[in-house]
């Protein structure tokens, strides 16, 4: 398995390299002149040209990319055009918030998703199945920003229970994490339900039932155990995308993560920040996928890796 992990890690390198090439090219194709935007309102031409020179924007794209890549290989993500801070510093200031939000969201999603998934599978076809499926779908039926604003309106403004502002205290995270977690809940619940249904119909589960083993043990020990590998895959996929930043939730809840930073960087043509944040998001995603694959092996001994 060690060799397999190493092989997979090596495979990540070309993927990430391709990601940088794509982002870099796209940022150069996007209409809009970073030098002019950076020079500020009504800046004279000399100043625009000076900025262009300072940022190597007057060089051919290949040279610019080479410059970026050689920095990257030394672990240097470059400097933000706007703030002049190292991109790594900008990301370091925000990424912990993204991770925190992702972790809490995924926990909420796991509890709600597996919970409703199990319930609706064991009561398939009942009204309970219906209701819990509807609830678990909330996150993919209501547009995220609308859901977020509504939750904020109800819980912060009307009821005064929760804050609207990020201050670092544990209760700020509840509303954004819930808004974000509801989306993942759907996918987790869906997978849990269908895997459980499949397992519950297997012979060995019937046998177990026939032997008089209590339903709770059947569900938890046999059915859930067998459904777990697939559920873990879905959780991993969700986690991977959450770690890439939650643009809309961050915007609505003024959460200082990397998602918002990414969008603003695109809007201001801050190329190094766009490249840096995308690289971090992509790395998080592929690494989580790798971990999931390895976990899969642990959870499901039938699978072996070459």
């Amino acid at each position, binding site marked *: 398995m060690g060799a397999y992990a190493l092989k997979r890690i090596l495979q990540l390198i*070309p*993927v*990430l390299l*391709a*990601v940088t090439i*794509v*982002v870099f090219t*796209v*940022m150069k*194709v*996007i*209409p*809009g002149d970073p030098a002019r935007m950076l020079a500020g309102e009504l800046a004279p031409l000399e100043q625009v040209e000076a900025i262009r020179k300072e940022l190597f924007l007057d060089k051919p794209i290949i040279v610019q990319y080479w410059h970026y890549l050689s920095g990257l290989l030394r672990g240097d993500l470059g400097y933000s055009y706007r703030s002049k801070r190292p991109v790594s510093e900008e990301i370091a200031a925000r990424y912990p918030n993204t991770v925190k939000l992702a972790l809490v969201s995924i926990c909420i999603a796991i509890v709600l998703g597996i919970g409703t998934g199990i319930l609706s599978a064991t009561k*398939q*076809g009942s009204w309970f199945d*219906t209701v819990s*499926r*509807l609830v678990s*779908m909330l996150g*993919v*039926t*209501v*547009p*995220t*920003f*609308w859901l977020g*604003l509504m939750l904020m*309106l109800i819980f912060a403004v009307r009821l005064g229970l929760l804050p609207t502002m990020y201050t670092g205290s544990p209760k700020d995270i509840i509303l954004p994490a819930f808004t974000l977690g509801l989306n993942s809940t*759907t996918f987790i619940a*869906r997978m849990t339900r*269908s895997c459980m*249904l*499949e397992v519950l*119909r297997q012979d060995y589960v019937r046998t177990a039932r026939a032997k008089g083993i209590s339903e709770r043990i059947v569900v938890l020990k046999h059915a859930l155990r067998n459904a777990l590998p697939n559920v873990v895959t879905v959780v991993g996929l969700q986690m991977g*995308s959450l770690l*890439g*930043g939650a*643009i*809309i939730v961050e*915007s609505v809840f003024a959460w200082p993560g990397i*998602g918002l930073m*990414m*969008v603003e960087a*695109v809007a201001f043509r801050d190329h190094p920040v766009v490249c840096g944040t*995308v690289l971090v*998001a*992509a790395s998080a*995603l*592929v690494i989580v996928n790798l971990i999931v694959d390895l976990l899969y092996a642990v959870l499901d001994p039938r699978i072996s890796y070459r």
Partner: protein
Amino acid sequence: MESFFGFCRRLSRNRLAVTGALIVAIVIVLAAVAPWISRYQPEAMSLASRLKPPCADHPFGTDEMGRDVLTRVLYGARISLSMALGGVIIGGTIGTVVGLVAGYGGGRFDSITMRIMDVALAFPSILQSILIITVLGPGLQSVVVAIAIFCIPVYSRTVRGAVLSLKEMEYVEAARAIGRTETGIMFRHVLPNTLPVLIVQTSLMLASAMLVASSLSFIGLGAQPPTPEWGAMLASSRAYLRTAPWVSVFPGLAITISVLGLNLLGDGLRDLLDPRLKQ
């Protein structure tokens, strides 16, 4: 294979799937008959009657430009649905063909395309759409392109997965034995059998496409005013969430209900088409 009617009978027993199908059908009908229901033009402005609460003349009230919200929601069904459908069909077709060829043919094409899909999937999906639209300029067509590109890797992976198991089936061997060409087998025999997967995928993707469109509108990169697209309406109405809630409630409900319908339909179909889940 069971008959179409048998399938419909089973479908009719699945309460949620029926509800979903019904919702989707109603939305389509409303979109079709919009001009007969409403006597207003969806883009006709009247600043003097701005933000009027629901009343007899305007059952859903008027928006920030004095346009009738009911009319806009009805016409919006056409735009939102066709936008989602357009994107999903384009992306779905490309994705399906890529997945089919990669899965059936295997070899170098397979490994190259799947690496490309890895790269595509490594991007945060909404950022991918943002970049596409920033390059193309905001507007309905750009949203369609963004949705299409968003769909390609999803479809190609799903179809490839299905094809990998289908190509080992006996009937493929049989077709080959009677001298069918590989291309013929791929499209005539393998593709039709991926249909169940495709139908489920499409209904769920349509739902995501509508949400992606509304997210893009939130960032200001969706359909552009005065186009009555639901996502764009909802996004621009958030400024009046408190002072004129009807402007956002109705397009919001329209999206939520349609997306719910598509999701229920998709989930229901999956239950039915997946033999392992049969009751």
